[in-house]
């Protein structure tokens, strides 16, 4: 297919390299250096999508980051990415893209019926209409809206691309490589400052690429190229294209997203797709330029209506004509620049200027070229549905209120210029309170909040000469302050055209009897009438108007719409724009890939995976693993076709009848040393610790200051001033911080040191009636009898040449021991245990069996110590000392904590002895009671009791101590279950605790 709209020799594209691509399934070609937008326009494609709310046809409006319409679904190297701006996506060979927001196709869209409904979907439509009846929301309204609305589809596949994060420091960070960015970067670089210059586009130079100006006796573009080439040779300068600084945060930290690979068909080996830079800069220079703003008129969203500056960029950078019969509609001199470019390339434009008698150099030039210019003329409405076919135009009165007779003129595009809006986003994000600049009808940065300076067009300075002067001197001044160098840089002479004053005119009145939609926000379909409704309904604050109408809330963040919206509000409210104020600018400036933000912290990199020293053994023996905090723990060891239930039951049963071994390396371990160690423990735990003899362990419970149980575990006195504390796997880090808090801040007089030794020790729990036999074989020279190593006793021993610590403690409720060796010997220990245990039918058991054993014993764990329970609730009140003070003790006097009917742990058994009770079920008196049915308690943990071969659960139940024997219902709406249950003691097995002491 020939490119009807491509000029022969104009532009910066590489015509030697043809690239083929597909859009909506159709094949086209473009050139290296094209964007998807310029390549489509070169092929005469203007219809690229449908609008968000009304599904009106959408074309191209801009040529860069400000684009509100041309959002596509991109396909690249078997991956898909939504919400890509066609104006930013560089063309590569084999690129595929599809329209979004249209169903079934861009040319025939069912949703467009919204467009022809008598009453348009007005502001707040969704709020008002879909609220009733309530039951319709989930079933009917929401699925429909979701299908019809939304931009693009996120891939459900794993993203194979890699994203990197990088931290960088510099003296000057410069956002934007237009005239101002280049000048300040050059001046600062010459003073030896460390400079980072960031440009979001592939090409450096900003407006110099398209403006007809002269710097230092060369074209603006050539000057820019020269400066960039020199900067690239300097070791103290980093220049980055395709890099968008999108967020300005505290302490002068800015974040930049560098597109490393998006312009290539495939990411190169070892390259990331994107790189996110966290940059801390001593000084930030914001040279982000300005964005042209539209003039609002009827049907101004028709494909073919676009910014005049975009038309100029397509022509000068890509050699593409956006139309062959263009109409330029302007209120300032910028429109003439575009008109002159058209005229120079053989296309005759017509210029409509809202001003009465504008006079300037550039207008004279346009006149001398023979361009048809109509003053005091406006576009009333664009005509054409999928593409502009003509325009209704009229003269306008001096007060801009009355339209003359409407005429229709043929055109194939309308290029609009409503003057320029400085891009103040970054300055505003830094905390700069912006101010309204009357001469340009726009906001500019005010007093700097952080170390930031805004220069050039971003600061509302539209003269090139002034921009270069201020930027060169600011670059010199700031770098001199930092480096102490003062290298003179001469400012080149500038030739530019002087512009005359723009017209403060932004919206064309509706002609009598016409009801054209006049859009302010093109991406969210917010029209003038929507703002009017919002104000009529009483919305006053611009922040509220924004949220109610969704003005400026689309992915383009209102880059082309905000100021016109403010103009409208100020006009209706009869306030001046600065009094209305603008909405808050928040990062990111433009949408950033989630992948880039997440960086490498995905999959296995999202958190460290901790494995015990015995992990390889578990793997070899068919362990099925489960995430336990950051640890991987065997859940059960699969035999044959066993499932989790069968396997864990077998393992638990074997512990009750023979002996089992469990990897308990993951338990938190804290080494505590110092003369005041006992005193610390006495303050931290609820029970007494001062009299614990050396060689003995004790179970302890620690509280937060609010009286809630924080953690439990055993601590053993290894020697006079040396203790070994264990914590639960989940709370290990918090308990360490907790101890450090009290030692460093509250009781610094205590002479104690604490350090985590979790990973220094490998642990194995040997549990079951035959565990002593196993232990005796492991330590043949030790007296491990009930007298030699009684319950809660501690011994040190030699395990076949390896130093071991032996604790007689039990979580399973059976006679049990925990053996610790240094981590490196963990696997050796484990294999020895399995070896000597064989005679006693030892089996390894996983966390599921561990849970079963502790649940039927009524031992509490994380599901009971859930941050809402006090010692009493867990039947641990016997461990609360009445004599001494400890952390959180005073809170236990709270009336709720001492209430007669305070919740308490109980056991729960289903009446049918068959139905397992889902964890989280609520306990209620009457399963038929009207909702909300009063909840008496909840099931905290469930298991299949291996002792009694029926289901058993633990519950935290209101007035638990008086509920034993009661019949209740366990209800789980999630699992759709109602189970009649009986309340029993939480100590379901061995209530007297004889086994652990046997």
């Amino acid at each position, binding site marked *: 297919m020939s490119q009807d709209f491509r000029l022969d020799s104009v532009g910066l594209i590489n015509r030697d390299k043809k690239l083929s691509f597909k859009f909506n399934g159709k094949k086209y070609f473009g050139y290296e250096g094209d964007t998807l937008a310029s390549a489509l326009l070169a092929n005469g494609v203007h219809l690229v999508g449908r609008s968000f709310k009304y599904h009106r046809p959408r074309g191209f409006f801009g040529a860069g980051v400000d684009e509100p319409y041309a959002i596509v679904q991109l396909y690249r190297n078997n991956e898909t990415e939504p919400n890509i701006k066609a104006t930013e996506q560089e063309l590569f060979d084999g690129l595929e893209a599809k329209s979004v927001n249209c169903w079934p196709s861009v040319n025939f869209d069912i949703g467009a019926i919204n467009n022809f409904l008598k009453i348009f979907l007005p502001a707040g439509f969704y709020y008002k209409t879909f609220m009733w009846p309530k039951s319709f929301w989930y079933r009917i309204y929401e699925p429909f809206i979701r299908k019809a609305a939304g931009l693009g589809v996120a891939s459900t596949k794993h993203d194979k691309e890699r994203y990197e994060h990088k931290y960088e420091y510099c003296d000057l960070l410069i956002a934007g490589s237009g005239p101002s960015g280049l000048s300040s970067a050059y001046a600062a670089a010459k003073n030896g400052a460390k400079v980072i210059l960031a440009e979001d586009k592939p090409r450096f130079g900003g407006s110099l690429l398209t403006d007809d100006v002269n710097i230092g006796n060369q074209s603006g573009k050539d000057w820019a190229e020269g400066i960039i080439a020199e900067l690239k040779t300097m070791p103290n300068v980093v220049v980055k294209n395709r890099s968008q600084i999108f967020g300005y945060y505290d*302490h002068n930290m800015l974040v930049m997203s560098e597109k490393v690979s998006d312009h290539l068909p495939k990411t190169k080996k070892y390259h990331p797709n994107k790189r996110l830079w966290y940059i801390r800069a001593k000084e930030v220079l914001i040279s982000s330029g300005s964005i042209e703003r539209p003039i609002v008129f009827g049907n101004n969203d028709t494909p073919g209506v676009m910014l005049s500056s975009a038309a100029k960029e397509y022509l000068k950078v890509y050699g593409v004509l956006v139309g062959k019969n263009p109409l330029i509609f302007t209120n300032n001199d910028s429109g003439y620049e575009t008109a002159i470019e058209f005229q120079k390339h053989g296309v005759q434009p017509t210029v409509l200027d809202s001003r009465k008698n504008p006079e300037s150099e550039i207008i004279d030039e346009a006149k001398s070229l023979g361009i048809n210019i109509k003053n005091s003329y406006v576009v009333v409405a664009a005509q054409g549905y999928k593409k502009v076919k003509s325009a209704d135009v009229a003269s306008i009165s001096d007060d801009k209120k009355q339209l003359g007779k409407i005429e229709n003129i043929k055109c194939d595009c309308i290029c609009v210029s409503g003057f320029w809006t400085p891009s103040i986003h970054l300055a505003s994000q830094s905390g700069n309170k912006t101010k309204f600049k009357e001469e340009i009808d726009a906001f500019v940065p005010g007093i700097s909040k952080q170390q930031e300076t805004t220069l050039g067009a971003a600061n509302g300075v539209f003269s090139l000469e002034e921009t270069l002067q201020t930027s060169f001197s600011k670059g010199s001044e700031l770098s001199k302050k930092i480096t102490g160098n003062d290298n003179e840089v001469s400012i080149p002479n500038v030739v530019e055209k002087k512009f005359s004053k723009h017209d403060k005119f932004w919206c064309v009145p509706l002609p009598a009897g016409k009801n054209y939609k006049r859009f302010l926000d093109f991406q969210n379909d917010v029209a003038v009438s929507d703002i009017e409704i919002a104000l009529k309904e009483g919305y006053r604050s611009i922040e509220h108007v924004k949220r109610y109408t969704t003005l400026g809330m689309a992915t383009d963040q209102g880059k082309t719409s905000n100021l016109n919206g403010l103009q409208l509000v100020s006009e209706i409210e009869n306030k001046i724009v600065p009094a209305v104020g603008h909405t808050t600018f928040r990062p990111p400036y433009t949408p950033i890939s989630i992948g880039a933000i997440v960086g490498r912290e995905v999959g296995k990199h999202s958190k460290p995976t901790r494995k015990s020293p015995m992990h390889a053994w578990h793997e070899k023996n068919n362990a099925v693993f489960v995430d336990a905090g950051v640890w991987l723990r065997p859940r059960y060891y699969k035999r044959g076709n066993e499932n989790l239930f069968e396997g864990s039951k077998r393992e638990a049963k074997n512990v009750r009848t023979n002996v089992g071994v469990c990897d308990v390396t993951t338990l938190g371990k804290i080494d505590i040393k110092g003369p005041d160690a006992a005193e610390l423990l006495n303050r931290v735990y609820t029970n007494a610790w001062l009299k614990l003899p050396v060689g003995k362990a004790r179970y302890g419970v620690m509280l937060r*200051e609010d009286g809630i149980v924080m953690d439990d575990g055993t601590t053993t006195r290894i020697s006079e001033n040396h203790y070994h504390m264990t914590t639960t796997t989940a709370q290990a880090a918090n308990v360490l911080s907790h101890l450090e808090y009290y030692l460093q801040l509250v009781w610094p007089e205590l002479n104690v040191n604490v350090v985590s030794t979790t990973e220094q020790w490998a642990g194995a729990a040997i549990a079951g009636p035959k565990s002593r036999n196993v232990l005796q074989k492991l330590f043949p020279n030790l007296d491990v009898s009930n007298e030699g190593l009684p319950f809660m006793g501690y011994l040190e021993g030699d395990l076949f040449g390896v130093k071991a610590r032996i604790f007689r403690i039990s979580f399973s409720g059976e006679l049990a021991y925990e053996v610790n060796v240094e981590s490196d010997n963990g696997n050796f220990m484990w294999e020895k245990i399995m070896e000597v245990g064989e005679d006693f039918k030892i089996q390894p058991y996983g966390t599921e069996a561990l849970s079963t054993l502790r649940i039927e014993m009524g031992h509490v764990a994380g599901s009971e110590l859930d941050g809402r329970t006090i010692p009493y609730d867990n039947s641990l009140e016997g461990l609360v000392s009445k004599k*001494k003070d400890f952390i959180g003790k005073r*809170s236990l006097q709270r009336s709720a904590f001492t209430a007669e009917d305070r919740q308490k742990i109980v056991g729960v058994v289903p009446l049918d002895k068959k139905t397992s009770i889902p964890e989280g079920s609520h306990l209620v008196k009457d399963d038929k009671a009207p909702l909300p049915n009063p909840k008496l308690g909840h099931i905290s943990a469930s298991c299949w009791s291996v002792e009694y071969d029926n289901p058993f659960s633990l519950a935290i139940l209101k007035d638990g101590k008086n509920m034993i024997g009661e019949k209740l219902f366990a209800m789980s709406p999630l699992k759709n279950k109602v189970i009649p249950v009986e309340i029993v003691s939480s100590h379901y097995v061995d209530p007297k605790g004889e086994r652990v002491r046997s």
Partner: protein
Amino acid sequence: MRPQIEFSYGGDASVKRPELNKEISDQEWDDFVYNRKSLRGKHLELWQHISGCRQWIKVERDTATHEIFKTFKADEEVA
């Protein structure tokens, strides 16, 4: 300068824990455990360098602007 992610917030540093074994009213205890001013402006905070030296430090920070004015060691008197 260290990135914020190495640190963990630990609450208001001006709160003093009542001494152990001291009779204390419900009100005083509530003030210690629960009642906090949600200040806008300068605030003395506790932070722990959890992914580092594990020191608890006091940080004078502006809650509105996030400006950090001064830091103190755990045992240092706040000037």
